[in-house]
């Protein structure tokens, strides 16, 4: 009897939290399928798309609403451009982070050179640095670097611009993600059997080829885990994008969403706002559902290493 009651209570609690998480998200999705007019009638109603339009509105209003919301968001409010920017920034950052971290981590894990430990600690100490500490100095450093870089490269007809460019943002994301990624990958490379490298060297492969063809493929699970964490962090990053990107052509999704929400507020266009929210939420939720096993394993691994 008591056991039964406990069981019921357990499920009741879990289901309440389940609903608390899912219902708001479902509500956002539902309202992105409705016109502002429809939302104002009843913010919590089922979309007319599912129930059929009431007699006093035209029958194709529900479909029109979806077309309007997503067309307005994607084209007029430039979500297509924000999305593309986020994609480019995230992809470029991930490529840089993973390449540079894997190289450094491999050397730290596998080559006991003098100063090895010091180099490792130097990188890891970056994890104690809150991003806000480097925010302001980076802002001014970018000004100097752009000025001096442009002057240096002027003979080649090149110009360096780190402010308000995707290049600048990517540079920051790579640098700030190195400590965490190097930590994860060093642990991973250390756990790989060392004989493999020696066997490769014996077979006449150079160090570079051994790294590329033997060690890197073996480290794939660790790299995937690091990639997911960095993907989520960079795709959703707001503060640095806010400081370093101004022009609307270079904005990433979180910045664009924040800007559009203010627009939508003035125009009281809630359909647009909800469509924007959906466009921002879907990619990360999708990637998460696709790769959640790796992510959970990454957290587990991190937890056990402590």
């Amino acid at each position, binding site marked *: 009897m008591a056991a039964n009651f406990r069981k019921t209570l357990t499920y009741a609690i879990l289901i309440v939290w389940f609903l608390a998480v899912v219902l708001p998200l479902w509500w956002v999705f539902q309202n992105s399928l409705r016109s502002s007019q429809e939302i104002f009638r009843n913010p919590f109603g089922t979309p007319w798309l599912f129930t059929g339009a009431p007699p006093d509105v035209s029958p194709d209003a529900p479909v029109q609403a979806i077309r309007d919301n997503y067309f307005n968001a994607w084209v007029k409010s430039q979500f297509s451009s924000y999305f593309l920017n986020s994609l480019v920034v995230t992809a470029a950052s991930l490529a840089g982070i993973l390449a540079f971290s894997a190289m450094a981590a491999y050397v730290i894990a596998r080559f006991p050179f003098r100063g090895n430990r010091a180099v490792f600690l130097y990188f890891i100490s970056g994890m104690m640095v809150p991003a806000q500490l480097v925010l302001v100095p980076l802002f001014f450093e970018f000004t100097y670097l752009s000025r001096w870089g442009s002057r240096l490269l002027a003979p080649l007809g090149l110009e360096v611009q780190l402010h308000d460019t995707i290049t600048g943002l990517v540079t920051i994301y790579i640098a700030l993600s190195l400590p965490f990624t190097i930590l994860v990958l060093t642990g991973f490379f250390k756990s790989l059997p060392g004989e493999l490298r020696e066997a490769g060297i014996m077979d006449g492969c150079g160090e570079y080829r051994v790294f590329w063809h033997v060690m890197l493929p073996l480290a794939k699970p660790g790299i995937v885990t690091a990639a997911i964490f960095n993907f989520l962090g960079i795709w*959703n990053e707001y503060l640095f994008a806010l400081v370093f990107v101004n022009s609307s052509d270079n904005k990433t999704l979180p910045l664009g969403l924040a800007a559009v929400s203010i627009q939508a507020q003035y125009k009281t266009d809630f359909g647009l706002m909800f469509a924007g929210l959906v466009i921002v939420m879907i990619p990360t939720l999708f990637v998460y559902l696709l790769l959640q096993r790796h992510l959970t394993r990454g957290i587990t691994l991190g937890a056990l290493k402590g």
Partner: protein
Amino acid sequence: MKRNRERSLFIVSFLAPAFILFTAFVAVPCVRALLYSLEKWDGFSEPKWVGYENFVLLFNESDIFLIALRHNLILIVAGATCITALSLFFAALLHRRVHGAGLFRVTFFFPNVISSVAISLLWVLLYSTTDFGVINGFLKWLAGGASQLRLPLQWLGRGDVTVDLPYPFVDSKHLIYAVIPMMVWAATGFYLVLFLAAMENIPETFYEAAVLDGASGVAQFFYITLPLIREVLTVGLVFLLIGCLKFFDPIWIMENQFPSKDSHVLATLLYQKVFSEYNVGYGSAVAVLLFVLVFLSTLITLRLSRREALEY
């Protein structure tokens, strides 16, 4: 001899990219931040060395810094505590093999992968004083109809809000309290997964022995589970503390990018001082103190938990 040179070249070439980027864009800026905090500078003209004057100003000039600091502490005391308790509770429930544990674990994690900007905007709508506001609606319903809604609504809804704009939802003064439920909603999933992973690593035999001794579920939790996941618990607490100290996005978004004196946290104060008021020294002083707080809280948490490591 040649092999040795090749090896050194390999090591250097593999370390160089990460080393240069990290040095140029993390390490050097850290040092610069410390120097800026000792200068008076508007970002354009010649900087002036003022020693620790900026730090004195933080505490003396106005109470804005102390209010911001207090808000971060509120986040730690109320937010981090709730998140830890709730995620431990859920992890313990899921640890004891319930049906659909996987589904619950995956779903509870959802808010952690969503952009904090999106989450903030969603909660703005939930908190709204118009028909959108589920939370106010719920309180209204609890209070028993529209006639009596004044009392429970006052701490959430701003009085002077025009009814057709469900936006400036929350009184600035109370924003920090309104942010806490959102934070709990958004972060619990991650810590649940973290703690659950640690719990699943505890050998089953411990629980079997406890059951034989007649220990209740609650006793098992406090005498077996909790001590054995202490290291992971510490890591979780460090993450939470750092998160509360660095807190920025929700305040910034919920205040429409203009936090007032009443709603600042350290990070928003830093931003506003530097990028709106061009007071680089003052802003950097806030950043340096933020770093010191992160450093100290990490150190203290690690110290407190390192008393004895349990081997099993």
